[in-house]
């Protein structure tokens, strides 16, 4: 990211704007899905419910989480911040899953 900073500042305003949109869109679509998927997998194990119900509850919730990340990806003060926060968000269920050995 730092390496590309110079390249980034050299671009015209329009090109920069488009790159930011592209970056945020990628984050919203891919990062949002990743977060929703990891949370679903993690909550399906973690929710204090009988197993099938935990799966169902986690899966039903996932679309709300996805939607929230998509909106956040465009609302964050900077694209960089949006990426970092989403990465941080993803880390929580990912670590839980690693701990549970469910990611293998």
């Amino acid at each position, binding site marked *: 990211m730092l390496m590309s900073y110079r390249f980034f500042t050299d671009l015209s305003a329009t090109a920069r704007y488009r790159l930011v949109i592209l970056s945020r869109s990628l984050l919203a679509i891919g990062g949002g899905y990743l977060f929703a998927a990891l949370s679903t997998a993690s909550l399906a194990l973690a929710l204090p419910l009988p197993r099938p119900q935990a799966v*169902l509850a986690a899966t039903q919730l*996932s679309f709300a989480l996805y939607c929230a990340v998509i909106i956040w990806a465009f609302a964050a003060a900077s694209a960089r911040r949006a990426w970092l926060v989403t990465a941080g968000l993803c880390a929580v269920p990912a670590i839980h899953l690693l701990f549970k050995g469910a990611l293998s």
Partner: protein
Amino acid sequence: MKQLGFRQTNAWLHTWTGLLLGWLLYAVFLTGTLSFFHQEISFWMKPELHGSVADGSSAERAIERLQQLAPDAAQWSISLPTERNPALDVQWFAQGERVGRGGGQRLTLNAATGEPLEVRETRGGGFLYRFHFELYGMPRVTARWIVAIATMVMLVAIVSGVVTHKKIFKDFFTFRPRKGQRSWLDAHNATAVLALPFHFMITYSGLLLFMYMLMPWGVSSAYQGDMQAYFSEAGNRRGAPERGAERSAGVPVAAELTAIAPLLAQAQQQWPRGAASIQVSNPNTQRAQIELREHGGDSLIERGRGQQMRFDGVTGAPLAMPATPPTSVTNAVYNVFSSLHLIRFAGPPLRWLFFISGLLGTAMIATGLVLWVVKRLPERRKLGRTPFGHRLVEVLNVGTVAGLPLAIAAYFWANRLLPAGLAQRSDWEIRSFLIIWLLCLLHPLLRSHKRAWQEQLVAGAVLFAGLPLFSLALPHSGLPASLASGNWLLASMDLTLLASAALLAWAAYKLGCHQPAATRSPQRPPRKALASAEEVSA
């Protein structure tokens, strides 16, 4: 986007997510809305059934007919006449045949006489229903993914649209007609807010209906991806295996089937809505069993699933049914959501409420699409030309917002006009729909924006108005006859067609009256007429 606040970024997101898949969402919403009445539409599309009037003995007639047609069958299924479909549908499976969907032989009977009916081959409202989540002419899974992604985009558009509006409640009571862009925005807000709970419910439940395809990761982690293990533990399989076991045991011994009427009378006592279907396994043998299924249940939590009663097919003695486990809260949430989407349970008033809400949703999408164009007119004027993107949106707007209803009218006309003996008749009905829609998408390329709207609206109005007139020529299908006999199933379809025609004609008329505000813009498009264009969805 750094300098924008939360509300502005949501407005931006709302604009672009809405535009990106707006046309697809419009098509999904419109065909999905019509799907609330897909059985009624199918019935209307089969005029051969219109003489069928159900009475108390329809079930016995069906059994008599099956005794003649297939006394040795492994299973008979009878769908009894309902208020949504007054004909009798029977199906039977030969010995050794796998009992399941799509198999067996089917026949439609006149409920009043038990005579088989020669029904024209049509997909009926089922095509519109399938189209709204599987589109057409592409692999089912691909199409479901496309629609599911569009649904997710719709969810984002709804949430960001709500966030955008600071004064959402006040905006709802505001309508400023003849103010160009402002009127469009008001119309968009009003249609959105009026049915907002519906829009949200139908979108989120649409996602939930696809959820194991979209988000299988919960099952992956908790069940190592074993969907079957998950479903069997979740208790979604009901009593299927035992029935197979019964069938395979021993050589059948002939025995006379008990009369159906007393069993139905018993069911009627418990179920105020009566029985919806009869299933007879191993008829005319000692192992015969008769299963009755209730016509729609009361509980949303049980997904409106009816209860069942099982009887010995020879003695008529009631048999025990496997107990249904109580529904957990999480299951209940899913069941309520998915049955709200499918509304299998609903009576006519709720069905109409959903239909109208669906039309409002369709109108919301249409006004949003038009708003995108109207909002960019000043920019276009300043530029002195029409950018390609703007023109593309205009063309797609006409071809979808006005073109899709026109194509649906063409589908209905094809149903009426194609000869009954035509090979692949039902495919040709669908092709007519697709060809007309394609022409509607091409037509605006050749005409000015206003002309394109006008011509498609008028064509749609003429086609819709003609359909009830054509039905007058059919023996049992005319509007005066169905009104006189109180056949609301047929009459409401014809009246809805006339209402659609009136709306389209009104839209075309307003468009014709509209004079562009010459001082402000010589080539301002016909916004007033567009205002009514979204009504096309009726």
